[in-house]
C-alpha cells in the first residue's frame, strides 16, 4: 500500500487511533501519517517513532477530553428536549411523576421494612453459629413442636460434646414481676432467668460490673442500661439489692447495653438461672420434667449442626428411653438457626415479636406490583404521546441520528424522570415514615438517610426504573420511519394501542386482586372480633395477683369485691381465655398407661362459669369454694369428652399422669375458645386447685365503670400487700391476639388504595390523551347530532372493556391467594362471592370516575370549539 514509506508502529498507532474523534478519524489519521512520514524521511525513523509516542501522551488526552465535552453537549441537548416536552404537557408529566414517585416511595418503605425483618438477630457476633434447641413431643398421636426444651440438654451438650462451644438457657418469667429498690417500685414485663453463659453465646455488651461471671451465683441480677437508670438514676447500680415480688432479694452484678429492637430475646432484667434451683434442685437433672426453658447453643462450626442433631437420638435413648416407652410417648430435639427464628419458625411457645415470612413475601410482591403499575403508567403515557414525539423523531433521523442515539435519548429522558421521581419519593418516605412505623408496629427506623450504602443502591434503583419504564417507548419510538412521520402518515400505531391496553389490563388485574385481598382480610378480622367465643368477653376485668396471701384468703377477697356496687360476679382462676392452658398427659378411667391423652388444664373456682357466661352441657359445676372435704371433682369440655370417647362422662374418673390423685368428673361445659381463632378449641380439663390461682375475674355492670374501678382498687389494696393494682379488660386481651392481622389489614388497605390511585392516575392520563386525539371526531359527531351520553359512552367504552377483562383474570388469582391465607385460621369466614363482586365493582367505579369525568367534559364542549381546534 505505501510504496516506499515506512509503516506506522502498530501499538502507538492503535492507541492514538482509539482516542481520535470518530467522525474525523480518517482525516486526522491521515494527518498523523503525513507528519510521521515527513519526519521519517527527514530525521529518520527513530525520531518519527519518538514523535508518534509523544503524541500518544500529549494529544490523546486532549482528544479524549474534547470528545467528552462534545458529548456533554449532546446530553445537554437531550436534557433540553426532555424538559421541553415535559413542559409542553405539564398535566401528563405531573401524573407521570406523581405516580412514579408514589410507587417508588412505597417500594422503598417496603424494602426497608423487609430488610429490617430479615436482619433480625443478626447483630450477634456469632449469629451464624447460634442454634436453638427445640423439642418435638408426641404423646399418643398428639404431636407438638415446641420452642422450649428441658433443663439438662444445654449443659450436657456443652460438657460432653466438643462441637458445642457454649450453651445458655433462658426462661422468661410469666406475667409481670414486681421489682423494688427503696421507694421505687415497678412492674416489669421483661424479666427472665439466664445462665451465665448468656454473654458467651450472645452479644449483649456488658457496660459495667462483673464482666466474667455476672450470673454465676444464685440471686444475682443483670440490668439493661435504661432499667438501671430507672431504679438507680445516676448512682452506681453494681452491688445494690433489688427486692423482687415482695419475697426475695437480688444483687445487681452488671449493667448491659439495652437490647436491640431487632432481637427476638427481649429483657430488661435477667436473674441468674441458679436461683431457680434453690427451690427445685431436682429439676436440674430431670430429662422429662419441667420443659419451659429456651436453650441456645453456640457451635464451633456452623456446618456441624447436622452432626450435633445426629447426637440427639442417642441422648434421648440414654436418658429418657425407658420412661418414654412406658407412657408410649416420643421425644425429639432439633436445631433451629438463630437468624431464621424470627421469620421462619412458627412453633408453639415462640417468644418475642414474630415475623411472618408469608407476610414478607406478600409485601415484597405488593411492592413489586406497585412499582410495576407505576412503570406501566409511565410506559403507557409515553407511548400514548408517541404521535406528538413522532415528528421530533423523524426530524432527528433526517438530521442523522441513528436508532441507537434515539434510544439513548429516550432512555435518558425516562431516567431523568425517574431520578426526579426518586427525589420526590425520598421526601414521601421521610414524611410517611412515622405513619408506616405505626402501621407495621415496629420500633425500627426506616433510616433511609442514615445509610450510605443506600446511595449507590438508590441510584441503581432509579436507573433500573428509568430503563424499565423507558425501554418500550424508546424502542417503539425509535422505530418510526422518518418519511412517514414527517408526511404526517402516522396515526397512533395499532401495535402501540394493543400494548397499551395490555398494560392497563395488567394494572387493573393487580388492583382488583389487592382490593379483593383487602376485603377478605377485613372480613376475617371482623369475623374474629365478633364470633361467639363460648363466653362473654365484654365488661370483664382481670386482676393480677402478686402476693400469695391474696390467694390464701380468696373466698374472703371475692366476698369483699362482691360487696362493691357495680360488681356483678367475681371468680378466681389460673387461666383466662386468651391465656390458653397448661398441658399435661391425662389418664381417663379404663385407659391403659400407654393410652394417656394430652389435655389442656385450667383451674377455676365455682363462680368462673357464671362470671364469664360459660354454659354447662351436663352435670354440675363446683358447688363450694372450700378445698377441705370437697370431693376430688373436675369438669371437662365437650371436646375432651369427645376425645376420650365418653358419651356420658359425669361420674367417671380421670387422673393426671404425673399425679396420683384420681378426680371425678361432675360436669361438662360447652366448648369455649381459650386461645385465638387461629387454633382449634382444644380438649380441656377443668379442676378446682386454689394453689394454682393467680387471677381474679370480675364482671362489671356497664354503668359507672370509673366509680366501680375506684372502689375495686381500694378493696384490692387491702388484700394485695405489695400495693400493686394490675388489671386489664378481657376483651382487650383477646383482641390483642389479632394485632398482627389487624396490622396486615391496615397495611394492605393502604397499599391497595395507593395502587388503585396510581392506576387511576395512569388511566386519567390515557383518557385525557384519548380525548385529545379525538377532539375533532367528537366535534363532528356532535354537530351531526350525537348526544352527550352517546359521546361519553364512546369514549368510556374501551376503558370499561379493559377493566372487565382484568376482572375475569383477577378473580381466580385472588381466589387462590386468599383461600391460602384463610387456611391459617382454624375458624374463618367463607370467601363467598361478595368480595369478588365488590372488588370488581370498586375497580369499575374507579375507572368510570376517572375516565367518565374526562369524557363528560369532552362531550360537553361546544362542537364549534372542538372543530376549530388545531
Amino acid at each position, binding site marked *: 500500500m505505501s510504496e516506499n514509506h515506512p509503516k506506522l508502529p502498530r501499538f502507538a498507532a492503535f492507541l492514538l487511533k482509539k482516542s481520535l474523534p470518530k467522525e474525523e478519524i480518517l482525516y*486526522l489519521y491521515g494527518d498523523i501519517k503525513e*507528519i510521521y512520514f515527513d519526519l521519517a524521511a527527514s530525521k529518520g525513523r527513530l525520531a518519527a517513532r519518538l514523535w508518534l509516542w*509523544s503524541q500518544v501522551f*500529549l494529544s490523546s488526552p*486532549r482528544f479524549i477530553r474534547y470528545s467528552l465535552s462534545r458529548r456533554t453537549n449532546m446530553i445537554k441537548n437531550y436534557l433540553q428536549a426532555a424538559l421541553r416536552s415535559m413542559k409542553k404537557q405539564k398535566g401528563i408529566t405531573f401524573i407521570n411523576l406523581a405516580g412514579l414517585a408514589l410507587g417508588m416511595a412505597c417500594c422503598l418503605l417496603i424494602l426497608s421494612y423487609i430488610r429490617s425483618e430479615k436482619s433480625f438477630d443478626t447483630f450477634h457476633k456469632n449469629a451464624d453459629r447460634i442454634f436453638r434447641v427445640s423439642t418435638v413431643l408426641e404423646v399418643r398421636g398428639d404431636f407438638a413442636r415446641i420452642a422450649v426444651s428441658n433443663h439438662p440438654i444445654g449443659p450436657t451438650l456443652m460438657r460432653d460434646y466438643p462441637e458445642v462451644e457454649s450453651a445458655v438457657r433462658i426462661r422468661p418469667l410469666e406475667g409481670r414481676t414486681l421489682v423494688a429498690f427503696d421507694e421505687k417500685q415497678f412492674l416489669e414485663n421483661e424479666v427472665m432467668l439466664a445462665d451465665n453463659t448468656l454473654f458467651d453465646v450472645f452479644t449483649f455488651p456488658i457496660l459495667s460490673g462483673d464482666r466474667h461471671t455476672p450470673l454465676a451465683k444464685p440471686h444475682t441480677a443483670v440490668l439493661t442500661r435504661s432499667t438501671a437508670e430507672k431504679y438507680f438514676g445516676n448512682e452506681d447500680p453494681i452491688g445494690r439489692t433489688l427486692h423482687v415480688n415482695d419475697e426475695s432479694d437480688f444483687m445487681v452484678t452488671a449493667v448491659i447495653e439495652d437490647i436491640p429492637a431487632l432481637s427476638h430475646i427481649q429483657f430488661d432484667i435477667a436473674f441468674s438461672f441458679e436461683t431457680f434451683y434453690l427451690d427445685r434442685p431436682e429439676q436440674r437433672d430431670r430429662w422429662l420434667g419441667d420443659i419451659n426453658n429456651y436453650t441456645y447453643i453456640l457451635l464451633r462450626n456452623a456446618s456441624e449442626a447436622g452432626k450435633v442433631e445426629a447426637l440427639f437420638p442417642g441422648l434421648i435413648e440414654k436418658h429418657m428411653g425407658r420412661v418414654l416407652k412406658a407412657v408410649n410417648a416420643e421425644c425429639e430435639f432439633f436445631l433451629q438457626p438463630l437468624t431464621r427464628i424470627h421469620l421462619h419458625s412458627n412453633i408453639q411457645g415462640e417468644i418475642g415479636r414474630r415475623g411472618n415470612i408469608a407476610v414478607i413475601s406478600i409485601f415484597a410482591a405488593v411492592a413489586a406490583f406497585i412499582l410495576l403499575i407505576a412503570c406501566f403508567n409511565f410506559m403507557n403515557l409515553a407511548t400514548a404521546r408517541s404521535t406528538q414525539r413522532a415528528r421530533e423523531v423523524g426530524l432527528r433521523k433526517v438530521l442523522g441520528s441513528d436508532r441507537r442515539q434515539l434510544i439513548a435519548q429516550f432512555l435518558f429522558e425516562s431516567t431523568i424522570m425517574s431520578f426526579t421521581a426518586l427525589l420526590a419519593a425520598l421526601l414521601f418516605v421521610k414524611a410517611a415514615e412515622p405513619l408506616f412505623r405505626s402501621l407495621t408496629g415496629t420500633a425500627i427506623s426506616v433510616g433511609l438517610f442514615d445509610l450510605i450504602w443506600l446511595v449507590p443502591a438508590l441510584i441503581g434503583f432509579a436507573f433500573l426504573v428509568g430503563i424499565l419504564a423507558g425501554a418500550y417507548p424508546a424502542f417503539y419510538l425509535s422505530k418510526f420511519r422518518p418519511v412517514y412521520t414527517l408526511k404526517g402518515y402516522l396515526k397512533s400505531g395499532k401495535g402501540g394501542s394493543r400494548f397499551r391496553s395490555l398494560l392497563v389490563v395488567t394494572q387493573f388485574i393487580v388492583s382488583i386482586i389487592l382490593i379483593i385481598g383487602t376485603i377478605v382480610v377485613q372480613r376475617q378480622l371482623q369475623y374474629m372480633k365478633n364470633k361467639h367465643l363460648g363466653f362473654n368477653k365484654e365488661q370483664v376485668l382481670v386482676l393480677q395477683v402478686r402476693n400469695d396471701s391474696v390467694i390464701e384468703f380468696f373466698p374472703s377477697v371475692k366476698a369483699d369485691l362482691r360487696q362493691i356496687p357495680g360488681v356483678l360476679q367475681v371468680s378466681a382462676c389460673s387461666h383466662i381465655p386468651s391465656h390458653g392452658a397448661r398441658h399435661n398427659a391425662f389418664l381417663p378411667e379404663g385407659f391403659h398407661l400407654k393410652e394417656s391423652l394430652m389435655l389442656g388444664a385450667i383451674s377455676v373456682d365455682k363462680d368462673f362459669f357464671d362470671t364469664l357466661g360459660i354454659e354447662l352441657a351436663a352435670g354440675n359445676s363446683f358447688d363450694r369454694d372450700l378445698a377441705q372435704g370437697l370431693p376430688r371433682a373436675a369438669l371437662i369440655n365437650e371436646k375432651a369428652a369427645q376425645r376420650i370417647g365418653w358419651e356420658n362422662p359425669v361420674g367417671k374418673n380421670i387422673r393426671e399422669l404425673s399425679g396420683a390423685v384420681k378426680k371425678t368428673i361432675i360436669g361438662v361445659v360447652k366448648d369455649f375458645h381459650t386461645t385465638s381463632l387461629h387454633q382449634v378449641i382444644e380438649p380441656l380439663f377443668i379442676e378446682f386447685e386454689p394453689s394454682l390461682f393467680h387471677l381474679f375475674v370480675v364482671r362489671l355492670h356497664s354503668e359507672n365503670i370509673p366509680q366501680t374501678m375506684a372502689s375495686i382498687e381500694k378493696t384490692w389494696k387491702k388484700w394485695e400487700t405489695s400495693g400493686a393494682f394490675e388489671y386489664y379488660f378481657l376483651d382487650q386481651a383477646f383482641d390483642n391476639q389479632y394485632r398482627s392481622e389487624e396490622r396486615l389489614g391496615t397495611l394492605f388497605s393502604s397499599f391497595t388504595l395507593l395502587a388503585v390511585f396510581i392506576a387511576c392516575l395512569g388511566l386519567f392520563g390515557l383518557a385525557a390523551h384519548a380525548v385529545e386525539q379525538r377532539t375533532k371526531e367528537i366535534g363532528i359527531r356532535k354537530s351531526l347530532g350525537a348526544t352527550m351520553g352517546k359521546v361519553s359512552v364512546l369514549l368510556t367504552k374501551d376503558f370499561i372493556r379493559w377493566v372487565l377483562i382484568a376482572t375475569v383474570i383477577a378473580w381466580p388469582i385472588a381466589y387462590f391467594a386468599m383461600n391460602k391465607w384463610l387456611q391459617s385460621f382454624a375458624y374463618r369466614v367463607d370467601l363467598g362471592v361478595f368480595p369478588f363482586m365488590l372488588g370488581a365493582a370498586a375497580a369499575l367505579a374507579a375507572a368510570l370516575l376517572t375516565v367518565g369525568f374526562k369524557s363528560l367534559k369532552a362531550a360537553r364542549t361546544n362542537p364549534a370549539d372542538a372543530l376549530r381546534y388545531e
Partner: protein
Amino acid sequence: MKYLTRQEELILLTVFQLKNNAYLVTIRNHLKQNTKKSWSVGAVYVPLDRLKQRGYLKTRIGEPAAKRGRNAVKYYHLTQDGIKALAEIKKVNDLLWAGFSTESISTPKNV
C-alpha cells in the same frame, strides 16, 4: 463577540496565511516555524474544531494522497464570521498596541 483564546487566535491567523492550503499538517508546520514551539496534533485539532463549531471556519474535503496512506485531506477555510472576527481582533489589538516599543516603556524605580 466572544473572545478567542491565544491558540485559537493564532490558528485562525494561520488559516488566513495559508489561504487554500490550510489543513492540519500545514497549519502545524506553520505554527511551529513562527512560534518556535512544538505543537501536538491534538493541540492544533481541538481549537481548530472548536473554531469550526463556532462558525469561523468551514471545511472542504480534498483528495486522498499517497503520502497520507491514502487518507483524504480536510482543508479549513475562513468564513465571513471568521474574517469579521479577525478584523475585530486586529482593530482592538491596534488600539491597544499603539505607541508600543521596548524603549518607550520606563519602569518606575524604587518599586
